[in-house]
């Protein structure tokens, strides 16, 4: 059962071959049996899941069910879930029980999805390896001495090990796509504004986006349909109707122009990953698409620009954690200053503190122009590079990550080396474009991701290309050993 996709399970549920309660019980048992080795879940909501499954079965029986009804999923612990702990991977929110549901959570619940629990993540979404979580590192099911990537490492590991059928993730600099690449699953970051950020704990408000993490592009299309849409409560939500992502999956991609980013295929890319990505791209040409080389001349500046913009926005967003209204409070604060300083210093881990400090520095008097303003101008240049590139092609491809999953602890002492994990993904967030990672052939037995980048609100085309490739290849059907 757990090897099946949303599409297959939905058919089975609607056909009465299996009930959501059976499916949910099965997945909860799998979590008990296997998650000890992975640490992918922070909170398991067993009782609630079974109640939701019962309700889903009732809807399926009365003919009032959709494609997500009865499907067991998990939510990244950055999404507020009503009456359930929402920790954001941090000591700061270790005991925070959210009084409301994030819009994305509410929409999936309305669609009838069953929540198995909350997945582990890098603290406050800051990281590329899921090693900064207060609740301990997550391990990659393909090799438990390696990282699953981050910050949505828990969601990626859980989906890859088939402990849930799909999961939600968030992506600010690559946090859906990079872990999807390292664990061999499909992850999509929609266009900025496509999914509501209401109830999604903010890291960098001009970059954050929610998205589906699944085992196929078809599943991502189904799940995105339930997640996307205008939300009045999110002032950055796009007032734009949601495309029918599933309807266009079957379109022929012959003649489509696929741009290959010259700057992303050279130095810094692991040779094995390069070979794998070339093989995936060859798959696209066999389908009749045409590869054209394109250039993003300012792409090399995306990591420097991001490490100003994102920390600056995070220093502002995390200032709400002050020990006053919710979250961790230090013992016996002697005055207000002490309350703030100790609550925050005790509640936040070292990576979060580093980023808050860089952000505060970049925004402080005398440095704002040299750093923040400069970074925003570089951001404009990067967006313009993409605009020009999309005049020559319909979809852009590149590797998702520069290598395969690295060993736990390998990059722990070198923050900058960790930041470079996102060299191919960050530009996409800076421009606000939709991006996706799908499995390419493995390299030395470890998963590799092919990144697809689309024009604004062109998720349907990305999903179409990905799905067509998945119809003629089986890289996305591979599963890690030991989790059968």
């Amino acid at each position: 059962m757990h090897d099946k996709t949303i599409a297959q399970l939905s058919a089975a549920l609607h056909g009465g071959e299996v009930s959501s309660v059976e499916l949910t019980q099965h997945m909860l048992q799998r979590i008990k049996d296997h998650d000890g080795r992975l640490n992918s879940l922070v909170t398991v909501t067993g009782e609630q899941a079974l109640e939701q499954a019962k309700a889903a079965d009732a809807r399926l029986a009365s003919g009032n069910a959709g494609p997500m009804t009865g499907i067991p999923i998990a939510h990244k612990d950055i999404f507020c879930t009503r009456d359930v702990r929402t920790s954001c991977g941090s000591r700061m929110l270790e005991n925070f029980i959210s009084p409301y549901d994030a819009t994305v959570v509410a929409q999936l619940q309305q669609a009838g999805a069953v929540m198995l629990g909350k997945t582990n993540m890098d603290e406050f979404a800051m990281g590329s390896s899921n090693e900064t979580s207060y609740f301990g590192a997550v391990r990659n099911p393909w090799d438990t001495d390696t990282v699953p990537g981050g910050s949505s490492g828990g969601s990626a590991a859980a989906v890859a090990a088939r402990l849930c059928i799909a999961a939600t993730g968030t992506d600010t600099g690559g946090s859906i796509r990079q872990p999807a690449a390292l664990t061999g699953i499909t992850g999509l970051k929609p266009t900025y504004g496509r999914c509501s950020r209401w109830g999604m704990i903010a890291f960098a408000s001009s970059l954050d986006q929610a998205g589906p993490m699944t085992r196929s592009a078809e599943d991502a299309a189904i799940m995105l349909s339930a997640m996307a849409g205008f939300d009045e409560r999110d002032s950055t939500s796009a007032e734009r109707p949601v495309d029918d992502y599933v309807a266009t999956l079957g379109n022929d991609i012959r003649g489509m122009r696929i741009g290959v980013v010259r700057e992303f295929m050279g130095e810094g890319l692991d040779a094995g990953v390069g070979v794998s990505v070339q093989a995936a791209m060859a798959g696209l040409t066999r389908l009749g698409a045409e590869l054209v080389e394109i250039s993003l001349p300012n792409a090399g500046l995306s990591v420097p620009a991001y490490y100003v913009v994102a920390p600056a926005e995070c220093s502002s967003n995390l200032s709400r954690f002050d020990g006053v209204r919710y979250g961790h409070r230090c013992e016996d604060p002697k005055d207000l200053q002490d309350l703030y300083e100790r609550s925050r210093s005790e509640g936040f881990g070292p990576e979060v503190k580093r980023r808050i400090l860089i952000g505060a520095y970049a925004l402080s008097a005398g440095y704002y122009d040299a750093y923040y303003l400069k970074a925003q101008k570089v951001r404009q240049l990067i967006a313009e590079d993409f605009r020009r590139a999309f005049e020559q092609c319909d979809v852009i491809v590149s590797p998702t990550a520069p290598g395969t999953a690295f060993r736990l602890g390998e990059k722990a002492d070198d923050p900058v080396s960790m930041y470079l994990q996102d060299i191919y993904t960050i530009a996409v967030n800076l421009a606000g474009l939709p991006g996706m990672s799908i499995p390419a052939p493995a390299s030395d037995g470890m998963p590799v991701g092919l990144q697809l980048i689309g024009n604004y609100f062109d998720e349907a085309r990305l999903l179409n290309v990905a799905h067509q490739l998945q119809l003629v290849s089986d890289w996305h059907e591979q599963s890690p050993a030991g989790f059968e």
Partner: protein
Amino acid sequence: MSLTPDEVAKIAHLARLAVTPDDAAALGRDLSNILDLVAQMDAVDTSGVEPMAHPLEMAQRLREDRVSEENQRDRYQANAPAVERGLFLVPKVIE
């Protein structure tokens, strides 16, 4: 770009984070490395380029000035560390 422990202390104060003298040295080094990464932006001339705050062409939406939320104070205060009669308790602010 090297940050002194003094500068680290100043920024830490701005961010309301406590940094011990021991941490300050290591933090100074980490932050300096990040600033070296960031300095790569100086390689490009951006005079005349519009800063981009936001990926979408949109202005802040406004709505009717009408009450739309119901009072759920008790529910929202359930996570508060210290509450009395609906008020959040903090150490004395005014001397």
